[in-house]
């Protein structure tokens, strides 16, 4: 099995301060070198991506006086996929006086991450969470409020305190627009040079430091090299490796993967969050999956027929005694409110037994009949009206009359480029923020924590730690004729040329779809050694076929959406393989990674802290062996001691 | 647009009330017309007020047209390529017909001045004999004049129905509740105006005025 990778040296996070956890960030802030305000103008920072992390970072760095160059593949920075986040953002404000605190948020996050996150990072995240809310309110983010005019909070994702701030079901949108507006202000002032419809295709490293990127103007096809004193990647997660996910169609791993190929370690790629309440696939035309808020599980009851033979019948024709409310049956104390990973896997299990409902048998019922009977249709409508409407719009079914059908879908990826406490990757000068890095969620992310991390990184953490790096600058100016720059550029150009020249007989999407099937089948909710080994073989041969048979129409000198997709899918093949290798090597179940071989007698996830309490950081397979090298960063838990989750 | 438009609407109402005096008989109506020329005397010489008012109205009309032309021109420049599939009207028809409606109204106003102010086109055409001028004008034999008049007044009504609402909006009307009131008021005011103006020619037509 170890045939798939080499073991390398352990890594240590050299930036992490020591001492009492509550003082570490203060300590780091004080020890960080400062940049004289007058010198900041001379320092250029590239930020790739304009979501919550990238947008907030670009705005804050520009406010601080740095010259920022920002890039996004969308037509406007406002469209980054953070915009689709629904639920809310956590912050340890304790406005409800319900016993919340920074320490409790820290504790919940470490525990929720199944003890695979760094304590120092998580504590810092919890402590800046309160500043995030202040910042967003000052920007005019219209959070939900109570009649007294103060901010409203709700409990989210099964936590026992109400610490989630929200703006109806569109919290991500409102937070992103706040960051976007701050960014546009800086663009107007000339402090940010915005390049929308530009895609980063390569990282430029000179003398061991990240010094720039190669980008393609997606409108004209022009390839340019962009130089800077530091590069920040805020390019999001890689859930689209599964083809069907709740990510936007354009979400991709290319920026991260190019950096990985150039030496940045990629950590914990196998940690994938699968969200239980998505609208199931309706057919082969399906291009993406839509998430519905988890809050539906507060009143909806999940069930499938007891007998597989009943699956084709209309739900109304299945009498009460023939229904299996399996979550309530297996987890009597949490019932329908078990955490995301458990609810997802349980749905998969019943569907694997042939008891799934709807097209292809890939769905379970989420039934509101009892809630409507108990609370009245009006009350249910007031609570979930907009979600019901969305469901009806997509499926054409009326959830007041027939139960909803739901199925799990890939939603978030906890893995990403390895970063130290300063959010710096293993390449000096390359910083990674938001979902693109691996750092704070461990093996499983809690609800309403992604927005917190993206904004925490961008508004508060990066501007401090990046300053420390830039304080040693400005770095020597690099000419566009520098051999490393020319080499990176040539690499991009020849890759595009190669993709266009294959002129085969299969479309990019057909390959992507097939890759997605392999990943979902073998590296999805439940993984086995056998399946993963098989998947690696399948991915390798599919990748080979891709480079022989893909058909990319058009030229490189125009808007060419298939060329863009082809480049991204090519990177997804390599990432997919690494995800399978990572999943294969981690012979334990934890958070968003469930290995069938590692479960308790009653089918629950079984961690092996003695063996696997580390971050798996992978070095790209550059050597002759063609195998990635595993570097382990050991995790120590001084404050929150590993325990086993139980929801029975 | 809003300010000049409202000024013109104000005039239309006063003018309509004046018109309705025709129902009080020839003498009263002619007397009213004569009185109009004497407003402001003896402070102002005879008919000066009327000329001042005409001046103000002309400025308002020109201002209204200039603003409309600028808007129309901007609209044309803002959409250089037209839709191949003609967009269907989602809002109100009255709003969509403001520009052509405005042109029709303008043509009518010119004719109307030549007809009943300068009397150039009037069949009776005697200054001071206002009642007779009107009665002869709308005589049943001249049905085409009445028809044109009617169509023009309906165009004015449609123009006002959107115009009044739009003017309120432009001047800052913003609550959903008052929008309902404004829309209703615009409708009532437009209908009143149309009925008020049309009552005269139809009265002539049916012989109520002759």
């Amino acid at each position, binding site marked *: 099995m170890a045939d798939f990778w080499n073991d390398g040296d352990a890594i240590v996070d050299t930036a992490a301060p020591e001492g009492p956890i509550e003082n570490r960030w203060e300590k780091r802030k004080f020890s960080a070198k400062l940049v004289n305000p007058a010198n900041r103008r001379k320092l250029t920072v590239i930020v790739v991506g304009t979501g919550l992390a990238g947008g907030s970072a670009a705005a804050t760095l520009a406010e601080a006086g740095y010259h920022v160059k920002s890039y996004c593949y969308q*037509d406007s920075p406002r469209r980054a996929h953070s915009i689709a986040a629904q639920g809310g953002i956590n912050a340890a404000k304790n406005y409800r006086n319900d016993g919340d605190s920074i320490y409790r948020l820290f504790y919940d996050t470490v525990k929720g991450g199944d003890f695979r996150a760094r304590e120092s990072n998580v504590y810092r995240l919890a402590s800046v969470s309160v500043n995030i809310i202040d910042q967003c309110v000052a920007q005019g983010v219209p959070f939900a409020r109570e009649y007294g005019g103060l901010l409203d909070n709700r409990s989210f994702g099964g936590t026992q305190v109400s610490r989630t701030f929200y703006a109806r079901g569109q919290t991500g949108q409102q937070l992103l627009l706040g960051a976007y507006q701050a960014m546009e202000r800086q663009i107007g002032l000339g402090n940010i040079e915005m390049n929308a419809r530009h895609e980063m295709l390569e990282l430029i490293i000179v003398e061991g430091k990240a010094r720039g990127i190669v980008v393609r103007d997606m409108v004209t096809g022009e390839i340019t090299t962009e130089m800077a004193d530091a590069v920040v990647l805020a390019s999001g997660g890689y859930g689209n490796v599964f083809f069907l996910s709740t990510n936007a169609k354009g979400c991709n791993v290319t920026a991260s993967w190019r950096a990985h190929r150039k030496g940045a370690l990629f950590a914990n790629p196998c940690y994938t969050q699968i969200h239980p309440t998505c609208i199931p696939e309706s057919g082969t035309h399906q291009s993406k999956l839509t998430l519905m808020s988890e809050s539906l599980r507060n009143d909806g009851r999940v069930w499938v027929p007891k007998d597989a033979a009943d699956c084709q019948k209309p739900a109304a024709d299945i009498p009460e005694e023939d229904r299996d409310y399996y979550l309530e049956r297996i987890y009597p104390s949490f019932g329908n409110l078990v955490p995301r990973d458990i609810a997802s896997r349980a749905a998969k299990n019943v569907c694997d037994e042939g008891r799934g409902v709807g097209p292809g048998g890939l769905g379970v019922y989420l039934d509101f009949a009892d809630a409507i009977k108990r609370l009245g249709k009006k009350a249910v409508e007031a609570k979930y009206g907009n979600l019901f409407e969305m469901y009806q719009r997509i499926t*054409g079914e009326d959830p007041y009359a027939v139960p909803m059908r739901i199925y799990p879908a890939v939603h978030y990826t906890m893995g990403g480029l390895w970063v130290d406490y300063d959010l710096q990757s293993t390449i000096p000068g390359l910083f990674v923020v938001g979902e693109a890095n691996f750092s704070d969620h461990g093996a499983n992310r809690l609800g309403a924590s992604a927005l917190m991390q993206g904004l925490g990184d961008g508004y508060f953490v990066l501007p401090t730690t990046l300053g420390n790096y830039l304080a040693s600058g400005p770095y020597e100016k690099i000419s566009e004729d520098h051999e490393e720059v020319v080499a990176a550029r040539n690499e991009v150009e020849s890759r595009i040329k190669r993709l266009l020249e294959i002129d085969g007989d299969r479309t990019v999407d057909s390959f992507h779809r097939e890759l997605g099937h392999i990943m979902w089948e073998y590296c999805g909710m439940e993984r086995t050694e056998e399946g993963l080994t098989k998947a690696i073989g399948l991915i390798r041969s599919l990748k080979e076929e891709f480079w022989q048979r893909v058909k990319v129409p058009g030229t490189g000198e125009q808007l060419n959406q298939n060329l863009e997709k082809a480049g991204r899918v090519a990177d997804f093949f390599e990432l997919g393989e690494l995800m399978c290798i990572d999943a294969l090597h981690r012979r334990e179940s934890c958070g968003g990674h469930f290995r069938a071989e590692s479960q308790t007698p009653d089918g629950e996830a079984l961690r092996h802290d003695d063996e696997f309490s580390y971050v798996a950081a992978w070095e790209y397979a550059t050597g002759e062996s063609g195998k990635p090298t595993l570097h382990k960063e050991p995790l120590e838990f001084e404050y929150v001691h590993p325990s086993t989750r139980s929801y029975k | 647009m809003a300010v000049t438009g409202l000024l013109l609407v104000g005039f239309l109402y006063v003018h309509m009330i004046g018109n309705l005096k025709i129902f009080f008989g020839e003498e009263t109506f002619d007397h009213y017309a004569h009185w109009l020329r004497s407003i402001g005397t003896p402070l102002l010489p005879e008919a000066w007020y009327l000329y001042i008012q005409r001046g103000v109205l002309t400025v308002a009309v020109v201002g209204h047209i200039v603003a409309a032309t600028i808007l129309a021109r901007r609209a044309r420049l803002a*959409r250089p390529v037209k*839709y191949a599939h003609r967009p269907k009207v989602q809002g109100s028809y009255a709003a969509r017909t403001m520009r052509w409606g405005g042109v029709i109204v303008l043509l009518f106003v010119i004719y109307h001045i030549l007809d009943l102010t300068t009397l150039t086109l009037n069949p009776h055409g005697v200054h001071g004999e206002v009642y007779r001028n009107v009665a002869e004008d709308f005589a049943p034999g001249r049905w085409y004049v009445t028809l044109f008049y009617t169509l023009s007044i309906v165009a004015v009504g449609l123009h006002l129905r959107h115009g009044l609402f739009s003017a309120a909006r432009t001047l800052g009307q913003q609550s959903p509740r008052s929008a309902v009131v404004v829309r209703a008021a615009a409708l009532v005011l437009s209908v009143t105006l149309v009925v008020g103006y049309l009552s005269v020619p139809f009265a002539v037509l049916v012989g109520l005025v002759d």
Partner: protein
Amino acid sequence: MDIQVRVWRQSGPTDTGRMVSYDVKDISPDASFLEMLDVLNEKLILDGDDPIAFDHDCREGICGACSMVIDGTAHGPEKATTTCQLHMRHFKQGDTIDVEPWRAAAFPVIKDLVVDRTAFDQIIQAGGYITAPTGAAPEAHATPVPKADADLAFEAATCIGCGACVAACPNGSAMLFTAAKVAHLGLMPQGQPERDTRVIDMLQAQDDAGFGGCTNMGECSQVCPKGIPLTLIGRLNSDYRKAVRKQL
């Protein structure tokens, strides 16, 4: 179901463009409009034709990327729905559907159905923000906001910047877009210091970008996928009048 689509094809900004018909067969009524175009594109690619370029991203109605005028209506026949959330079950077997890009001078066509909406960003740059440098924020509860104001501000802030309002407006005006942002920020106490300059500067930017003037026709609000109310334009006008008066 089988349908025919007539799609605007324009190879680049300088091409004049034309409507081209395509037959699409065996489309599931459960497919979204964009998925129908995906299926068509797959066929075009394999036939050696140029696939249709169109903007899209989240495909769940929130990013605002998708932008098609379908049978003369921005985002198609369903109310309060983006193109990506429009499903084929709203069409009939044998229909001919016309698909065009947003048409506005301020949104020049890049290719086929893809237009450049940078003008919207420019309007925001002119004043669609509250100046709040990171770190300078007071405690979040320092300024309570009446719930009614917060709710209305939220409603205005749900604008996704898709540009359907411009596409539908017979004047090619961006007033609803600008009004939504002016209202969102103007309703919050945090937005008061910049309220006057904001409305003046944003309107100026809107005019400079080549959008038409507003004549309160209301087409914009009818096609808005988020149902941004037309009344916000009155709010903008009121703010504008007050701001100009203060400047005098």
